[in-house]
């Protein structure tokens, strides 16, 4: 298991296009990947599920933890964290 905490910085948060980009990238990896909102006790979402990700309603400024388990776990977490930190080009 590999994990990392990042802050969402883009203005719209993980909604709309950024959410799609995030899920599309997660699907490139074979590991099981989860994302958790650190500001509450909600269950983590499957990073390969757009619906559960949207349901978390992750807005700008939220700290999230990305965790992965599998062959490419480290690369998956680092890539997804970098995507969030890039601000999705907004």
């Amino acid at each position, binding site marked *: 298991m590999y994990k990392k905490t990042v802050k969402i910085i883009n203005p*719209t948060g993980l*909604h*709309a*296009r950024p959410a*799609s980009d995030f*899920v599309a990238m997660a*699907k490139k990896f074979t590991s099981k990947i989860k994302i958790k909102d650190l500001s509450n006790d909600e269950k983590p979402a*499957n990073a*390969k*599920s*757009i*619906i*559960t990700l*949207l*349901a978390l*309603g992750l*807005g700008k400024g939220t700290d999230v933890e990305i965790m992965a388990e599998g062959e490419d776990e480290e690369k998956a977490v680092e890539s997804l964290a970098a995507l969030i930190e890039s601000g999705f080009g*907004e």
Partner: protein
Amino acid sequence: MKYQGNCISEGIAIGRAYTYSPVEIHITEHTIARSEVALTLEEFQDLKRTAMQELLQLQRKLQATDPGKAKIFAAHKEMLEDEELEECICDAIEECYTLDWAIESSFTQFIDLLSKAKDPLISARTADLLDVKKRLLRIRSGTPEKNLAKLPPDAIIISHDLLPSDTAAIDRKHVKGIITEIGGDTSHTAIIARSYGIPAISGVPQAVECLKDGEKIIMNALSGEIIYAPTPEELLAATRAKNSFMQEKEIQNQFLKRPCRTSDHVSVMTGINIGALTEEEERLLPYVDYIGLFRTEFLYMDSDHMPTEEEQYEAYRNVLEKSGGKTVTLRTLDIGGDKVLPYFELPKEENPFLGNRALRLCLDYEELFNTQLRAALRASVHGDLWIMFPMVGSISDIRRALAALEAAKRSLEKDRLPFDEETKIGIMIEIPAIAVLAEEAARYVDFASIGTNDLLQYLSAADRQNAQIVKYYHAGIPAALRLIDHVSRKFAEQGKTVGVCGEMGGDPVFAPIFAGMGIRKLSMSTSRIAAVKQVMSLFSAEELAAVKECVLARDSTEQIAAFMEAQIAKKQEK
């Protein structure tokens, strides 16, 4: 059998009914034998593939013509591929539920989950999930998809209402007419029908139920009459009426290519109202004098993010370059209330048409306004750009808008970006309050453009989209004409330009009245240009002024319409 409705796009069509309504499928809980589980799981994978194929095709078809709408189907594909949702469906099958029930119950669970999201933009996406679910169940039921992309020949579409997504991929070759149960003169259906030049009738209750698929229909969108299963005599009469209407259209089309002049050669400028410049609008550009209304909303509505200054600049510049030196009147962003942007959250309002919209909203969101003003000003060096503000209600609104414009100009100077310092600035006259204060308003701006749709709606306190009360909207016309005459005089006294860019400006009954008031700029949708040019050629400037006096002396819409029709008929006989 005869039915009656309101004509929202004129013409006569003879064709066959094509009823268009979403397939409703009801699913109940059932189980399967344990031995059937493996096969059902396979069936589910096949179903997913079929649905994926459909979505891909829809997306591809729209990609070239309307990339904004194509995104809807991209989002649906994404939901179909959702890992958690798929797991949930497979689990239900493993528990020996039928595939239909597994889909129904799993989707319901996820729709619930999304609908609980605090953000209304996220909860609104349950509609997409519902759409995907319906697609799967519809494929399962063996019913082919019904959309408007592939119509049988001579189709007259019968529907409760048509939405932008329905008409996005409409089969233009085969659609002959549209009949809807709801929708007024300025509804989406009306606008689409007029831009395609096909007849449309709305306000026909239970049309979908009464007009059976495939049955022969005559629709006369001049009288509003619909004849279902016509007799041979009725068919013959309709064919005759259709031919004479087409002949008249032909004469009008000859007028299209001439300049718009009165019989004594006084020019009245005709313009077109555009959004993203369509093919049809580009085709007509050589025959008009200017673009009287360039709606900028499409840039925002078709995007998944706030359009950047650069994106807007490119779009404005494109329109200016294509217009070849003709004036382009850009209206700043007119959203809020009912027109929302997926990436821009606004509080829900009880009464959106009286809410925080258009200029009001722009004044609240400085950065948004500044970005658009900077982009527009930068584009001004590529042609003759005029900028106007929508929903101005007071002198203070004008002052604040002008201050924002000034700030945008100064910031461009600081960044050493060129713009035309002489860019003309104007206001839309659509809130009655500013119409009353026309004299004062004219001191601050270079021009005014009268938006008759909203002006009439606010003046009459009647919703023009509501077929049931559209008569109250029309009843406001005499008052609106007097108010418009007032605005026109006050602006003319100060040497400022006044134009009309609402639906009334493109109505051959009202266009001569505006010309009689001395208004020399009328902007309309493309399909109205020829008819306006024709009617204008019938009268001299002096006669128009006299006609206007007679009209302003009348106090009912019926009297005004009857008077105008008599005047026009008298002229046409000669």
